[in-house]
């Protein structure tokens, strides 16, 4: 690791981990999922964590969301630990098909607000605004099975934003989409991100997606998951599809690929 994190807790960091380790205990026995993860995510940044399948990226994200507790080490979100889920700090966009099929798009987006106990009319209003933000005007009353894969993930993003958390965690949100839709959605996500000034932690196993979206990329190795590289992506914003053909893009992508290959 070239950028080792040695400074103390800071409020400028949206997320910070020190020596984070996770050992999964199941019926089958113990599995070390994550080993000694040290990373920082500055507020307002778009950070991508990339790694091969089963490297524990999802475990890491679950801990950031307060849905799983570390075995050892420290994790701070906005200066405080995440010992339980806290939607006022962190919103999560899950892998595909996490929408409730018995709720309409609006009801799905309003779900986090109704869990919080918000007024129903205000929740619906907020949900409609979020759906408009992700470009789903006119689809408010559709059920998930009436929406395309890309639209469903737009609803998921709107749901993640509904409680207006400063940090948005995204767990391979576009993994199940076809290549074209995936590119479009990445572009859309950057647009939404630039209008909301959220901190985004985005998990993927696609190298192209990682370089295209990120300010910074953390590269993980296979089990047990360790951070093996930290890459600053200095491509200008707004990002364009043409940038993918540039030498700089190719070099960044190649560097990450080399790291993942050697990390095996």
């Amino acid at each position: 690791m070239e950028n080792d994190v040695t400074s103390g807790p800071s409020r400028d960091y949206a997320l910070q981990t020190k020596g984070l380790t996770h050992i999964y205990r199941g019926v089958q026995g113990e599995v070390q999922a994550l080993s000694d993860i040290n990373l920082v995510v500055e507020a307002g940044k778009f950070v991508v964590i990339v790694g091969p399948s089963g490297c524990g990226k999802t475990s890491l994200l679950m801990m950031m969301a307060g849905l799983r507790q570390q075995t050892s080490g420290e994790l701070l979100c906005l200066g405080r630990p995440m010992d339980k889920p806290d939607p006022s700090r962190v919103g999560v966009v899950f892998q595909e098909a996490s929408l409730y099929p018995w709720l309409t798009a609006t009801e799905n987006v309003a779900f986090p607000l109704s869990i919080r106990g918000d007024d129903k009319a205000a929740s619906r209003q907020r949900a409609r605004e979020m759906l408009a933000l992700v470009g789903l005007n006119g689809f408010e009353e559709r059920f998930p099975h009436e929406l395309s894969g890309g639209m469903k993930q737009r609803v998921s993003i709107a749901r993640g934003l509904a409680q207006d958390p400063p940090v948005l965690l995204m767990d391979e949100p576009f993994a199940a989409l076809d290549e074209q839709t995936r590119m479009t959605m990445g572009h859309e996500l950057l647009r939404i991100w630039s209008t909301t000034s959220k901190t985004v932690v985005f998990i993927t196993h696609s190298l192209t997606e990682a370089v295209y979206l990120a300010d910074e990329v953390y590269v993980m190795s296979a089990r047990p998951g360790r951070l093996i590289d930290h890459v600053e992506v200095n491509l200008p914003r707004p990002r364009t599809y043409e940038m993918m053909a540039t030498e700089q893009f190719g070099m960044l992508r190649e560097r990450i690929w080399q790291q993942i290959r050697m990390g095996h």
Partner: protein
Amino acid sequence: MRLWIPAIRALAVLVFFACWELFPRLGLVNPALLPTFSEVVSTLWGLLSRPKVQDSIFITAAEVLLAFAVAIPVGTILGVIIAENQYIGAIFRPILFYVFSIPKSIFLPMFILVFGISFTQKVAYAAFTTTFVVLMSAAACVESVKEEFLLVARSYGATRMQLLMRVYLPSMLPMLLEAIRIAMIFNFTGVMIAEMYASRTGIGHLIAGWGENFQMPQLFAGILLLSIIAIIFNESIRILEERFSTWRTT
């Protein structure tokens, strides 16, 4: 659905009853073995006004409902435990599958020895057979709730109660109704088998008696009556099922 499909279906049913009426009349089948449909219907009408038959219907209904009321909660609780606790599930699930494969009717003599030929014996036997079905279905229902659905709710800070009411229940509802419907089929069958095997009362007992005494119009009247009751119950749950499962097309 295309219009002609239900039309042809209705026609098929009509043809069935027409054949039932005509074949014995025309001598195509022995009328002593198969009485005509109209004779069966009028026999049924006559039977329904007899106090003995009315008592039998009442007793059978009580047995069916009581067995159901026992089997549903017991089976559900056991099924949820199996599905929710991975250790208990890992230990007992294979054993339950072995037991599930055994025909339950071979235990009927045991129930008679323990409870005697009685109301309790019918209820206990039917509840016993039904509990296994409910247990299996309940476990499957709980497992059908996708992990993501729960994660989403938990990530937004849902309480246990919110999880139950807002995620588990709506997610399981279509499958739950289907499970109840199928459990009722097993439950009804259980009571009938117990009554026909050894009993002093109940519709099953009457049907067995009519069969043994070669009273074919009465036998078919009993069959017709039970079929109507079973179909009505089944269809009412199925209508509910369809109402709650419009989203299940994914």
